[in-house]
Structure formats: C-alpha cells, structure tokens
C-alpha cells in the first residue's frame, strides 16, 4: 500500500459553533442602540459625547493594562467588553457632566475593577458599576445635575451641539445660563426630595417631570431598553432568570409598600420604569462574569438585586439603588454559587 501519510491531528470535537466573545459583545452593543437613540432625543447629544470620551478612555486604559500585564493586544483590545463598560457608565452619567467625570470613572472601572483582578472573565464586581459607585461617592452633586426632558410642558435650555461640547469640556455652562437654569433632577431624585419635604406621593407626582406611570421621557427610554433586552433574550445572549427575578422582586416590594401606604411609597410601575431598573435588569445585572452561575443561583441573585434596589431607593441615601444593589450581590455570588450547584446526573439529591 502507499507509505503512511502524515495527517495533522487535533483533539475532539472537530466542529465547534462559530461563536466568539466579540460576537456576544457586539450583540449587546446593538441592543443598546435604541436606548442611546431615545436618550439623545429626550436629553440632547451630550450622551454621545460622553460615550465617545468613555470609549476612547476605555480602549486606552485597556491597552495600557494589557501591555503592563504582558498580554497580546489583539484579540483582547477589540473584544468589545471594554466598550460596553464605557457605554453603560456613560448612560448612568448626566449628559452635561464634565469630561473628567466619565474619563476617571471609566479608567477606574477598566484598570482597577477589571484588570487588577485578572482581566476579562476574572472580575468579581461589575466594572461599570464600580466606576459609577466611585464617582457617586466622590462627586455626588455632579451626578445629580441632569437635564429636563425634551417634552411638551418643559422649556429645555436649547443648547446647540457646540455649546454642549464646550460645557462638557470646560465644566461650565454657556455664559447666558447658570447651572440651575439648565439642569433638573431625575424623577427619582425629585421624588426623594419632595417626600423628604413632607409632600405626599400624589403631590410629588404633580410635578411636570412625571407622567401617568413614570418619569416623562424616561418611560420611552426604558421601553427602548426593554426592546433591546428582549432582543438579547431572543438571541439567547442573556438568560431570562436575572431580568425576571430582579424586576419581579422590585415589582413585589413596590406593590406591597405602596398598597400599605400609597402616600408615602411609589407604585410598582413607577419603580420599574424609572432610573436604571430596566437597564440594570437587562444589561448591567446580566454581566455574566460577575453574576451567579446556575439557573437557580441567577434567580436568587436577580431577586436580591431587585429587593436591594427598592430598599436603597426608599430608605437609603441615594436616589437610585441599582449600582450598589448590583455590587452588594456581586459580593454574595460565591456563596450563592456554593449553595446552588445543580444536582448532577446520577447523584442523589
């Protein structure tokens, strides 16, 4: 017969699905496009500038960290994970926030919350939320200077694109405005202040910031987030357990408390559609690296985030509790994982 032919060998399996980390991350970015678009519609182009600043910082920080750690730049630099961190953090910041806010937050997130722990796949905490928490604790006033929504009944100070740019880069509003004239609290922030002043829920809701069930402008943005989240669920990029558990827990807590005392506590629909509830449920809490592992674990993790979000919003010191709720539950993940190992085939219960 013929002489033995040398064939290259490889271990089984010899076929794998053509998926990649980059593809997963890209799908998440596409799913965020509706949210970003509606945000710009209601609050102006500031967000886009923040995103650009954030992405540039993220890539620079990632490249520097990879170099320091002796890792190759491709494929890590463009796998999309740093870009997602930057976009999520930018979405949490006011559109007119000074440039150094997003830059320092993203740098902190990438360098300290991600690479210091081992880079992609090794971070125990959600990097975007770590960055946001640092900014919130360090510069609380800056983070409350949001804009009024671009809806009927409001007179948003119509800043041109150029003026937005200068505001962000100089940290000062254009000469003809003061900060008070152009900024406005978020619905959650306004609610908190008004309740502290002794108003009832009904009186607080009379504020023009509120619509029938949510904050005006915000309800549309949250709807867009819901659509993006549904897209990710359909593609099986994320699983249903965390969003459903988180939103259900939030809904239940809000329902119970607002049924007990409607004057003091906001209703469930308001909680679900305001702040970062939906963004958190579908894009932040579902970060696979820092979330629980098994299905049951994800339910507990998601429910914990929902409950903690409600607790912090209602009785804690900050208007929105999603960031801290996520970070606290990240702490609990090893314990959750330890006790929710699924029963292996052939093992006793």
């Amino acid at each position, binding site marked *: 017969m013929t002489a033995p032919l040398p064939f*290259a060998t490889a271990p089984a*399996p*010899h*076929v*794998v699905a*053509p998926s*990649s*980390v980059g593809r997963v991350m890209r799908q998440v970015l596409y799913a965020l496009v509706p949210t970003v678009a509606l945000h710009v519609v209601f609050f102006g182009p500031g967000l886009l500038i923040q995103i650009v600043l954030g992405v540039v910082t993220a890539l620079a920080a990632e490249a520097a960290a990879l170099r320091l750690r002796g890792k190759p730049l491709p494929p890590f630099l463009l796998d999309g994970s740093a870009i997602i961190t930057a976009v999520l953090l930018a979405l949490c910041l006011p559109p007119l926030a000074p440039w150094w806010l997003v830059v320092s937050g993203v740098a902190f997130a990438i360098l300290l919350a991600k690479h210091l722990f081992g880079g992609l796949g090794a971070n125990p905490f959600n990097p975007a939320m770590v960055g946001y928490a640092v900014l919130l604790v360090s510069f609380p006033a800056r983070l409350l200077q949001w804009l009024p929504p671009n809806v009927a009944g409001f007179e948003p100070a119509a800043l041109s694109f150029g003026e937005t740019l200068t505001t962000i880069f100089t940290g000062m509003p254009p000469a003809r405005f003061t900060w008070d004239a152009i900024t406005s609290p978020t619905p959650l922030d306004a609610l908190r202040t008004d309740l502290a002043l002794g108003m009832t829920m009904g009186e607080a809701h009379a504020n023009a910031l509120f619509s029938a069930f949510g904050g005006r402008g915000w309800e549309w943005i949250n709807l867009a987030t819901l659509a993006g989240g549904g897209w990710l669920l359909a593609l099986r990029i994320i699983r249903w357990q965390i969003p459903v558990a988180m939103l259900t827990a939030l809904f239940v807590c809000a329902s119970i408390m607002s049924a007990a005392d409607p004057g003091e506590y906001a209703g469930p629909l308001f909680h679900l559609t305001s702040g970062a509830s939906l963004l958190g449920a579908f894009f932040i809490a579902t970060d696979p690296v820092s979330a629980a592992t098994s299905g049951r674990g994800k339910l507990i993790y998601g429910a914990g985030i929902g409950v903690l979000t409600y607790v912090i919003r209602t009785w804690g010191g900050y208007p929105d509790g999603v960031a801290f709720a996520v970070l606290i539950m990240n702490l609990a993940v090893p314990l959750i994982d330890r006790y929710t190992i699924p029963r292996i*085939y*052939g093992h006793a219960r």
Partner: protein
Amino acid sequence: MAKPGVRGGLRLDAHKERSTAQALRAASPAKTLVLPLDQHAGAPAVPLIKPGERVLCGQPIAEPGGTVSAWLHSPASGTIAAIEPRPAPHRLGAPSLSIVVANDGRDERHAESARAAFDQLSPEQLRELIARGGIVGLGGAVFPTAAKLNSALRVQDLRLLINGAECEPYISCDDMLMRERARDIVFGARVLLHALTAQSCVVAIEDDTPQAAAALEAAIADAHDGRIQLRRVASIYPAGGERQLITAIFDVEVPSGALPADVNTVCLNVGTAAAVAHWIRDAQPLTSRIVTVTGDGVLEQRNLDVPLGTPLAALIYDCGGYTSRMSRLIMGGSMMGQSLPHDDMPVIKATNCIIAASALDLQPRAAEMPCIRCGNCSEVCPAVLLPQQLHWYAAARDLDALEMYGLADCIECGCCDYVCPSQIPLAECFRDMKPALNERLAARSSADAARARFEARTARLERIESEQLAALAKKRQELTKKSS
C-alpha cells in the same frame, strides 16, 4: 407528552445523507489484515497460533487473556505472517501487539460444529457460546458482551435496551444496519433475551431515521415476539449515550459510578445484536463490521461491510481514494472521534466510522479567550455539570473541587466545547484531568480497604483476648469451686 429526549444536548447537522445514499456493499478484500490483540476492553487476547501457520476464515486465533477479555477470529483464510507490534488506531498510532494475516484470497471457511437452536440451550450455555464468538460492544466501547451479560446475572426483572440511537454526526453505520439487516437485529435481541432471562426489550432509535424505523417495525412484526418494541427518541446529540438513553426510555437515572445493571437494564448496540445473530444463527464469529466512510476528503462516501484488520489506507482506496481537499483523518464521529496521524492502521472492532475531513467538514477553533462565564456550556451538558467551574478548578489542579463538581461523571461528549464563545477546548481539558482524579480516587479506595482490614484485625485480636480472659476466668472459678 413530549418525546423522550436527553437533557441539554445539541441539535447538530447530521451529515449522513451522502453516506446513506447507496446500499451496503462488501469492502474489497485486502492483502494483509492486522489484528491488534487489545482491540477490546479488558485484558488483551492471547494468541493461539504461531507465525507461519495456516488459518481459515472464522478460525479462532486468540483466546481471552482474563475474566474480562474476548476471543479473536481470523477474518480471512491465509497464513499468519507475523505476531508483532503494529501501529494501532485505538492507541493513536502507537504500536500494539497484533496478529498479521496474509490473505490468500481463497476465503476458505473454518467449519463450526453443529449446534442446537439457541432456545434449546440454557441461558448459561448461551452466554458461554456468545463469548466464543468474540462478540464485543460494537457501539464503540468494545466491552466484551459475555462479561456484560454475566455481570447482570443476579438482577431481577431485567430489561434489554438495544441502542440504535446513532446521535453523533457523520456516523451512519447503525442506520444502514437497521435499514438492511433489521431481521438480524431482532433475532439477536431474542437470543439476548434468552441469555439474560429477561422479559422485555426496547429497541431505541432517533426520530430522524424513518427507513430504519420502518424496517425494524416490519422485522419486529414478523418475529411475532411481543416482548420487543420499538421506541423513538428526539434526535438530540448525545441521545445515544448509554446513560442518557436509559433515562430517556425508562425514566430512571443510572447512579454515578454504578452500571446500567444496577437499574435493571442491559444496554447493547444494534451492531452487537446483529453480531450475536450472525454467530448464534449462522455460526459466523465477529470477523467484520459495517464502517461508514465519509467526509469531503474521500471520493465516495458510503457504508461498507469491512473485514476486521483491513488497513485504513486500503479502505479509503476502496472508496475512490482521497480528494485533494483531504485534511484530517478521524476515527469516529465529529464530536468524539479521534484524529489519526496516518492511515497505515487497521479497522478494529471499535471502528464505526472513518471521516476523511476537509476544511468543509471541520470547524477549527479561533484563538482561545478567557472564560466569560456565559453559561452556554452548563446549559447543554447532558450530565448536568458546570463545565465553567470544572475548567476553573482544572486550571488550579484542585482535585477536591473537581471531584465535588463531578468531573468523574463527564461523558466527554463535547457539547460544552461546541457552544463556548471563548473557544476553550473544554473536553480536552477534562480528558487531561481525569487520570489525576482517578489516581486520587484509587488511592482513597485502597486506604479505605486498609482501614477495614486494620479494624477487622483489631477486632479479631480483641475477641481472642476476651475469649482467653473468659476461659481463664472460668478455669479460676472451677478451681476455686474444687478447692472449696
């Protein structure tokens, strides 16, 4: 009610249309046949002949080398050219002691003594007779069938499961066997039912093989044997894995570390059943098997009835030779098959499929990235493991954690590999860690045995001492009684 199926798993492209388009044919006879003595599970067989001797087709040439071992028969008439180490496919090309038969092409048969019909024999005689046919599991595990039957002796209400669920892509030898030789399978099932004194038999097939199903149904009907029925399972890989199939059909789990016999089941491949039929009914021992030759790297894709020992090179030549796109030679399927370094190796009892793969068939991995804990792997694992955790602890060589997370229960199906976005070679990682884990488990069980012997000895010595003291006390009592 949902069709029974495996938990997790994957729907994969079957790639079986080309190789099942034509009917079975016999492979062209090869000039030299190489038969490794260790081509079955258990102890290697021991040669009965010497170089230079003449052998006939079907003549026993090696006998079992231990309790779990198998007979080996000559697939052709001719002369024993040598008994020497030859590259073996189950050793990925490393040499294994083999009997080399020079085929004289005359196909003279070894005469078998006349024997009674199988239902005239006692189950024990039948099992012994099955052993002499060199029958081993033809699904790939090549476990000696007689040993498997004997291990289920003391089980009550035994049920037989004939596994025709050929789930792995590219392999279609069982499908062809079921289409063309369904009667042999049913006859074999009846022989096995008698050998096991079992009362029920299920033949399981996947739901995407209508021709095989029709042929089997006709054969079962013709046999007029109410004990045998046909059941379909969802064609999800790996539905044909022994444990997964038993759970899908009988709704019981085989406990970890236990055998199917512990849940009253004996599972055998359709090919094994047919081989039993050929031996018991036609006095034809296991000297050939159906092999699928497929892949874009070979000209003609089909199934052939191949004598054991046929060199793979000759088999490919018989199918028109390699195409210019040939890249990788795989024995087995695309998910669990082993990649061979060259084709100067023989067809053995375990060779169910040869894939001459080209770039069209293969999906190479991209660069490996760190695990992002997406959970795709744990979703598809048929053994309900957490591959992401196993990978994490394998990197740390943490044997305690690997044991707790069930590495020993991994069936190496490759589903986790398939869906990993970070392209991590998970199945290979687990295959690498299993020997270390097994070593530690073996050390632990031998320590347990030593503890048991030590405690038995301590108890024995204490018993002897207390008996002596009691005898002494009794004697003292008697003496005091006497003197008083």
